[in-house]
């Protein structure tokens, strides 16, 4: 993107800034429209589950103007702040939380190579930044100086920090199977029929997906694990003192991290931007046939990944409106006594499975030989390397 802009804008550093600006605008647009769409979808889904219609009259037949109407109401609402609240932290907490859950989208590819910063350690970056969202909640809970919000902040912090461990362990399994932490590469690794998706790769990854799902729902604080704003016990948890615009920022952060976690799930387990049937391949919509076809192929990829992400979010809404809430000690025991051991077992299982699949000790372990002898080998056998190894050398980008 930056090189593309460089030949228009004279000083190189302006091109860099412009490129960053475009990336940021695109991602912000994605997150804000997603948040708006999901508030509407949440009302419709909960309506359907509870045998009622959900919003129908706000703008047109299906009430699709409901979320802008909510946004307007929240903007118009007065932003209260308790008297002896810590002014600076109280105001800053929602933005801190939103920045953390928004920054995660930097590493998430929305199409083949359509990613704002392609990092070879994309998954690790995701886990690191996703862990920061808890700060907004802790500081928000503390700053509103009421016992209820302190309770909510304490519970949220305990839950999110403890669920980061199993989440990380579950994420390691597909990374190990795909051999790389680069999200785009993981996506390419699963191209072709849905049989190649990592979830169907072996029984261990299948089960890892479900453990990942539990930990993702818990770390995003949704459904049976939404202890922080447990209205029945803690009034509204850390959100008690927030109203109006600040409250909506907290909620945008929640929806953004829900979308981020579901997109990561679709990349790691459901083949990222590859649809169940390799239609793009058949129609020739790949880069080899030309830039426009490549662009259309990528567009189809983006549609794939966004639908998978939305399905994940809708599943979380479905959970929320059917299951009651767990108690804090039950949440932590599921994490420590069930998620972590299970994730560890799946990790070992997947490791042995891939080890055997690669032919055991006599298999093709070129991955571990150094760069230099790989180059001689490549030049000697005139470049007939399996895709994943070729990619590792970083030379050939498709």
């Amino acid at each position, binding site marked *: 993107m930056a090189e593309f802009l460089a030949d228009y804008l004279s000083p190189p550093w302006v091109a860099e800034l412009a490129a960053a600006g475009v990336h940021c605008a695109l991602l912000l647009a994605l997150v804000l429209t997603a948040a708006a769409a999901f508030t509407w979808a949440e009302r419709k889904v909960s309506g359907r589950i509870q045998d009622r219609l959900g919003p129908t009259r706000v703008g047109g037949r299906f009430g699709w103007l409901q979320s802008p109407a909510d946004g307007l109401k929240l903007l118009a609402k007065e932003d209260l702040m308790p008297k002896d609240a810590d002014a600076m932290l109280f105001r800053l907490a929602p933005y801190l939380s939103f920045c953390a859950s928004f920054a995660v989208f930097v590493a998430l590819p929305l199409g083949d190579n359509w990613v704002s910063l392609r990092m*070879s*350690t994309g998954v*690790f970056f995701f886990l*690191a930044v996703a862990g*920061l969202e*808890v700060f907004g909640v802790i*500081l928000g809970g503390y700053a509103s100086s009421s016992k209820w919000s302190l309770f909510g902040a304490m519970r949220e912090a305990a839950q999110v920090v403890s669920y980061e461990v199993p989440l990380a362990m579950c994420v390691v399994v597909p990374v190990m199977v795909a051999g790389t932490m680069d999200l785009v590469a993981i996506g390419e690794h699963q191209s072709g029929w849905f049989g190649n998706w990592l979830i169907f790769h072996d029984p261990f990854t299948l089960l890892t997906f479900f453990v990942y799902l539990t930990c993702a729902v818990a770390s995003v604080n949704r459904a049976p694990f939404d202890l922080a704003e447990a209205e029945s016990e803690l009034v509204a948890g850390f959100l008690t003192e927030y109203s109006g615009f600040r409250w909506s920022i907290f909620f945008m952060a929640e929806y953004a991290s829900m979308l981020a976690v579901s997109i990561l799930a679709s990349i790691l387990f459901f083949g990222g931007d590859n649809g169940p049937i390799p239609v793009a391949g058949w129609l020739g919509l790949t880069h080899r046939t030309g830039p426009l076809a490549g662009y259309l192929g990528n567009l189809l990829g983006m549609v794939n990944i966004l639908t998978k992400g939305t399905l994940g979010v809708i599943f979380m809404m479905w959970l929320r409106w059917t299951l009651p809430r767990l108690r804090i000690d039950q949440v932590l025991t599921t994490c420590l006594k069930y998620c972590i051991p299970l994730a560890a077992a799946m990790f070992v299982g997947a490791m042995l499975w891939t080890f055997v699949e690669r032919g055991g000790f006599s298999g093709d372990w070129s*991955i571990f030989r150094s760069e230099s002898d790989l180059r001689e080998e490549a030049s000697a056998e005139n470049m007939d390397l399996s895709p994943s190894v070729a990619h590792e050398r*970083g030379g050939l980008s498709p």
Partner: protein
Amino acid sequence: MMLDAINWHSCFFLLFAAIACSFAVAVVVSSNVVRMAFYLIVSLASVAALFFLAGAEFVGAMQLMIYVGGTLVLLAFGVMLTARGPLVSIPTGGGQWILATIVGGSLLVVLVQTALSVGDWRGPTTPQAAAEQPANAPPLGLAMLGVRADQLDESNPRRREGMSGYLLPFEIVSVHLLVVLVGAAYLARAKR
């Protein structure tokens, strides 16, 4: 033209470095305990940003995850629980200031002196250059095991053995330390 001379990379570097230092100073100066914790978060996050600027995403993510995501959450925990009522702001007396500035000042002098004495303080490589050697996972994974994949073709054999690092044993020791700590915490828990 003068505009071209500014290498955007170094101006961002200066920006984040300034943030890190100023918030570090703010941590020392501020008396409100919770504000201190917050300033510490911002300063360590900007250090992580410096790592990203230098193209070392792995180390930057590591810094974010370990320092900001791990240690500071515990710090926030501790601060949140204790900072109730009179304990919120701890004013530092005059005497302590003098002592602090002496110790801090001397350490600062040592730091600056060593920083300036570095010989060829090459400027940070431009991002394009950093892109050629991708720090992708396998070499890093090998480095974790102590096998220096990038130095394997070292000319003289004597230095080649030196290349096998001691990272794996180091990791094992740290795991043992963790187990010992958990045990100690369990034994010392308040008998309810």
